[in-house]
């Protein structure tokens, strides 16, 4: 039964290797999140325009990103564009590019929604007080939009983190791949290695995502109560 053999987790060398894999995972996630947020904010503000020249490409971009699963995007970039078009991208670069584009699309929609859903009477009552347009944005609209945006974008960050295991499929040696290697090395001597290693990785992901999810919920509850 797979419940003995936990000693594989107590070998410092194994833990060190998992740690290195985890650093790769976190690095890719962090860089992708930063790019996603930056590009997402820019695209989201542009998408506030009701002009067809903006809305049609924006909706096409957003829906195309959304309807195709992330794994398919990774394959398209890694096997498709990279090889066929002669881009010599590493797996890590591909991962960062795909997660950044996907995250930027989702972030853009959050930004657009958080600003455009502010009730019109907020602007009107600010105008009635004699505030200038720029002042209204600075003191009335943006602070409110940010309060809607922050919890949702933290949530988006956890979604990006939870998508990182897909990187194992494009040959990146991240935490899951290291796990696989450790298990393969011990396959004969420790048949329960898979349970313990994947169990540990499961717990690691939970310990990263859960606190972030709690933070997002707390902020949302705090700001929606006001």
């Amino acid at each position, binding site marked *: 039964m*797979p419940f003995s053999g936990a000693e594989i987790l107590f070998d410092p060398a194994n833990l060190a290797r998992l740690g290195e894999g985890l650093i790769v995972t976190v690095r890719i996630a962090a860089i992708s999140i930063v790019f996603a947020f930056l590009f997402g904010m820019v695209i989201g503000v542009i998408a506030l325009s009701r002009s067809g020249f903006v809305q049609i490409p924006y909706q096409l971009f957003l829906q195309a990103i959304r*309807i*195709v*699963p*992330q*794994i*398919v995007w990774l*394959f*398209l970039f890694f*096997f*498709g564009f990279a*090889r*066929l078009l002669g881009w010599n991208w590493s797996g890590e670069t591909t991962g960062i590019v795909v997660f950044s584009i996907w995250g930027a699309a989702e972030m853009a929609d959050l930004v657009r929604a958080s600003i455009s859903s502010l009730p019109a009477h907020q602007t009107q009552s600010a105008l009635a007080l004699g505030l200038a347009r720029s002042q209204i944005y600075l003191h009335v609209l943006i602070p409110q939009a940010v309060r809607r945006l922050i919890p949702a974008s933290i949530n988006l960050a*956890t979604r990006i983190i*939870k*998508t*990182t*295991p*897909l990187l*194992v*499929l494009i040959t990146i040696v991240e935490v*899951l791949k290291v*796990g696989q290697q450790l*298990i393969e090395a011990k396959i004969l001597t420790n048949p329960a290695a*898979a*349970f*313990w*290693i*994947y*169990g540990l*990785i*499961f717990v690691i*992901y*939970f310990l990263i*995502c*859960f606190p972030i*999810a709690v933070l997002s919920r707390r902020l949302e509850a705090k700001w929606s109560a006001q």
Partner: protein
Amino acid sequence: MELDYPNMIASIPLFARAAWTTLWIAASGILLAGAVGLAGAFCLYLELPYLARPIKAYIEISRNTPLLVQLFLLHFGLKVDALPCAVMALAFLGGGYMAEAFRAGLEAVERSQVESALSLGLSHYETVRHVVLPQALISAVPAIGANVIFLLKETSVVSVVAVTDIVAVAKDLISLYYETAEALVMLVIAYLILLTPVCLAVWRLERKVKYAVFGR
């Protein structure tokens, strides 16, 4: 760039069979997830003692871990066969999301609706059956629809436990026959065929619900 059309056409039966597998896993996983989610949300709503904590813990664990790792743990760690493993993992992940959707729907039904049903002489069971549930389900429709699309897309990772789904077929064509471009084009087309009708159906249903019963 020139695509090898005869080979693409020849691969259609492979993709069709794989698409059937994908759909089958998605449908059974989503249905199970719905059942798990509704049961969990209901137990929370009825404030059943002893069950609230484990259910809340389950919701957090399923929502805060990646499906791929859940699959690895079930298949390689706990030695569950590939196909049942795929369905179980999808149900495990989806159950948490569905429970949240149903819970929010149940909470959206105001306490006073229950009181006025009780004051008409309806029993607790009748109140839940005729007053609370219909309204909860209606207000949960958008969240449930989003979950269905999300879970159908998540099904795309089951090839990692040796299920021959669309992604697995594409991977084989790429690594065994080097038909990279053809396989990728077919892969995208296959997902568009699977997902477009579902997305359209969900959007339509959402719009219908929005204009229907609600608002006071």
